[in-house]
């Protein structure tokens, strides 16, 4: 290959770097299509060899050669353009090169082989390079997406925020980077449908890493049915394209702020050398240091960063550190904030004034690394304990009402920015009063405590779980629709049912809960109204017998006709029992038939006995088999408003095709796993 046109190590100017980045991404996107263009030439050369090249194929080959000649050089493969030009000439003037002459045909096939080789070797190094070389261990984001425009926008925005951005186009390339470096966060494009699997596999790996790498999911799909899966795999946020780079990074920054395991420390000192030294000493173990040189900006920085500890210099221009500390202590928001002083003077008067102002500790200048780190750790430890007491409900381990309200408010604010939904659920254990009455408060508390622990385990990251009051708990789920929220809580309920708890009298007790789920912004714009709507759905779940989760509905009831969400036609009673339980848990109204004739009669006709959104239809039913039922439903127009999923024991392709041809929405082969069937049903009802 000819030498690179852009020296690899030359300091790249800003636009040059951008172009190289864009070119790298374009190359990733187009190397497949370029390969297909060469395939056309290969096929044409084969036809030449066998003497079968027709006019249409010749013209197509000429056209592809022409395009390759025009683009390969720009991609950094001038040799490729030269070869393509010779091939174009060959196809363009067939008369001048007798295509039957063996030497000429061989020359053509040689040229095509050379072109393929050239393409496989790729552009000269340096022409197409990875994104901005990242300095040592600077923090960076990893973007996995082939969207060049978004990538460039993010790169500019990230660089303005002094964040590195590394861009790759495939999950495989992302793994290579991740093997060596740990990004602050991963922005991962997850395609809808089956393409999502590979992305999910990566998320699973990252979720298992310690500490987990926060992942923000980018998706083009307006309705992303895999949200639940992504959340389970530790997805911290969802961004729907098209999205402005600025909004995307705002969202990432917010997530990073909260994901940071360590604390934020605000250091105020007018001496930049001190700030730099402190940063190096203190910024370990995930702690973040915010260095502030201008004490006049103290208040705004305090509000912006909500630090866990403040380090103040005693003597600064314009502002006196001791006075600053006094004002901090007078503000109820900050009265518990640990304050640590740095001072060059340790005479009795100075030390006394420091403590009188409400400081927690002081460290004499010059600062010694280990001493300062230890003192900061001690202060943070104590304040963590105090804060835990103030923010966490001791019975359930969940956030208390005040803290949960704050967190939920933040969640809604973030959702407003990103245009994402939030599911808000009210949750209550079943039969709390009965348990309290029969077995004493202790058993009721035990049930509530266990539920709290389970919720803590299932709702991480951006999700919020808190004790609302009495036995009522509240859960906020970021980026989730009503249906997603029902699904996730159903998983918690199914887990809870697996356990029995001591009842305080030597026996054990099963537990269950009921929940109602509302969705922001559809069911309300503020926390109050969302909780109200969710509570009403919770009430309905309890009235229906509890042990289930119901979505909030703006109910349009047809009292003259029985409606069901799902009709199950299945003659295996045991399987039907399992399915109906799983469906009821998720708030679906169900009807069950064990006979095909009965099911068809109830569903068909202009004025059916039952109107249902979905039918799970067994293949081998008594009375009328599944395929006949399906045909009956198709003929009577029921399929226009009802989605049918066939349950088939046979994996016969022709039968499946027959069912799909008749208008079945989907099919699931027996034996199937219930979660898989539920997921398919969810998709059928959502689409």
């Amino acid at each position, binding site marked *: 290959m000819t030498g690179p046109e852009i020296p690899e190590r030359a300091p790249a100017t800003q636009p040059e770097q951008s*172009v190289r980045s864009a070119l790298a991404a374009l190359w990733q996107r187009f190397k497949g299509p370029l390969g297909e263009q060469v395939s056309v030439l290969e096929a044409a050369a084969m036809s030449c060899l066998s003497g079968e090249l027709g006019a249409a194929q010749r013209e197509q080959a000429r056209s592809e050669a022409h395009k390759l000649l*025009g*683009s390969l050089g720009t991609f950094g493969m001038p040799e490729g*353009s030269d070869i393509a030009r010779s091939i174009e000439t060959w196809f363009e003037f067939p008369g001048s090169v007798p295509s039957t002459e063996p030497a000429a045909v061989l020359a053509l096939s040689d040229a095509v082989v050379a072109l393929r080789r050239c393409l496989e070797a790729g552009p000269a190094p340096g022409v197409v390079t990875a994104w901005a070389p990242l300095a040592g261990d600077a923090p960076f984001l990893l973007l996995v997406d082939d969207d060049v*425009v978004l990538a460039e926008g993010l790169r500019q925005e990230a660089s303005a925020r002094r964040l590195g951005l590394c861009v790759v186009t495939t999950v495989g390339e992302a793994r290579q980077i991740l093997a060596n470096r740990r990004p602050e966060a991963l922005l991962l494009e997850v395609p809808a449908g089956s393409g999502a699997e590979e992305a999910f596999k990566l998320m699973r790996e990252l979720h298992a890493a310690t500490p987990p790498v926060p992942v923000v999911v980018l998706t083009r799909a307006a309705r992303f049915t895999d949200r639940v899966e992504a959340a389970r795999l530790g997805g911290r946020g969802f961004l729907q394209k098209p999205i402005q780079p600025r909004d995307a990074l705002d969202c990432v920054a917010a997530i990073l702020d909260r994901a940071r395991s360590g604390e934020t420390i605000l250091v105020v000192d007018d001496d930049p050398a001190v700030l730099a030294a402190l940063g190096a000493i203190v910024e370990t173990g995930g702690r973040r240091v915010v260095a502030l040189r201008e004490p006049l900006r103290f208040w705004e920085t305090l509000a912006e960063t909500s630090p866990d500890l403040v380090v103040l210099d005693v003597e600064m221009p314009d502002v006196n550190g001791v006075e600053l500390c006094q004002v901090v202590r007078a503000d109820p928001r900050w009265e518990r904030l640990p304050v640590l002083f740095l001072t060059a003077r340790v005479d009795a008067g100075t030390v006394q004034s420091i403590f009188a102002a409400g400081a927690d500790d002081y460290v004499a200048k010059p600062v010694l690394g280990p001493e300062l780190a230890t003192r900061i750790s001690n202060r943070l430890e104590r304040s963590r304990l105090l804060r835990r007491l103030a923010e966490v409900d001791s019975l359930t381990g969940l956030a208390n009402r005040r803290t949960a309200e704050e967190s939920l408010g933040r969640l809604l604010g973030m959702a407003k920015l990103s245009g994402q939904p939030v599911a808000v659920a009210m949750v209550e254990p079943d039969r709390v009063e009965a348990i309290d009455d029969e077995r004493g408060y202790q058993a009721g508390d035990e049930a509530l405590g266990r539920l709290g622990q389970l919720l803590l385990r299932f709702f991480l990251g951006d999700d919020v779980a808190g004790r609302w009051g009495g036995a009522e708990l509240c859960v906020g789920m970021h980026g989730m629709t009503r249906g997603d929220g029902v699904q996730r809580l159903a998983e918690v309920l199914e887990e809870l049912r697996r356990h029995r708890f001591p009842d305080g009298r030597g026996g054990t007790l099963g537990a269950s809960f009921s929940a109602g789920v509302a969705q922001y912004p559809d069911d309300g714009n503020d926390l109050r109204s969302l909780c109200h709507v969710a509570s009403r759905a919770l009430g309905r779940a309890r009235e229906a017998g509890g042990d289930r989760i119901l979505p909030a509905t703006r109910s349009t009831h047809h009292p003259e006709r029985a409606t069901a969400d799902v009709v199950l036609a299945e003659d295996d009673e045991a399987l039907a029992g399992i399915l109906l339980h799983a469906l009821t848990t998720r708030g679906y109204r169900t009807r069950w038939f064990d006979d095909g004739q009965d099911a068809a009669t109830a569903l068909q006709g202009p004025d059916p006995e039952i109107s249902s959104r979905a039918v799970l239809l067994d293949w081998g039913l008594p009375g009328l088999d599944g395929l006949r039922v399906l045909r009956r439903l198709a003929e009577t127009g029921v399929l226009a408003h009802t989605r049918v999923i066939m349950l088939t024991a046979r994996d016969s392709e022709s039968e499946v095709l027959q069912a799909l041809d008749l208008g079945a929405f989907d099919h699931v082969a027996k034996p199937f796993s219930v979660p898989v069937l539920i997921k398919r049903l969810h998709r059928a009802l959502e689409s």
Partner: protein
Amino acid sequence: MECRLGQPLGSGGDRATGAHTLTEQGAFVVTRCVLVVDDDQQIRELAAASLGLVGGWEVLSAGSGAEGVALAASRQPDAILLDSMMPGMDGRATLATLRAGPATGHIPVVMLTAEAGPGGAAFVPDLPVAAVIAKPFEIMGLADRVAAALGWDR
């Protein structure tokens, strides 16, 4: 089809007055707008990357001659990069239509061609174009060549 690669963030685009971009120094500058007409998507995106990122211009793109003429009339770009060989309305026919149109006749055109070898502008001798640029073009240099041909400051 429209590609805004490289267009500075947040710059509102009113073509009648030119897109205004707030520079770091706080001054308003008028960004130029170039239309790329080529049936090959790869070429359109390569050109958009080059003109957008190196030139700092707004880049529009069209996948056929007819689309290019329509876009040129409605968006009034400052210049048009036109591929010579396209199916249907080829470069020559597109150029003739542009020249004849009252809304497009004044817009300078730079021809992109893979037929002319390097320096082979003689291949399209009598066409009313500002310049002929051979394909494949060098991605870092395309914007400079267009600017030079049109007498634009870069």
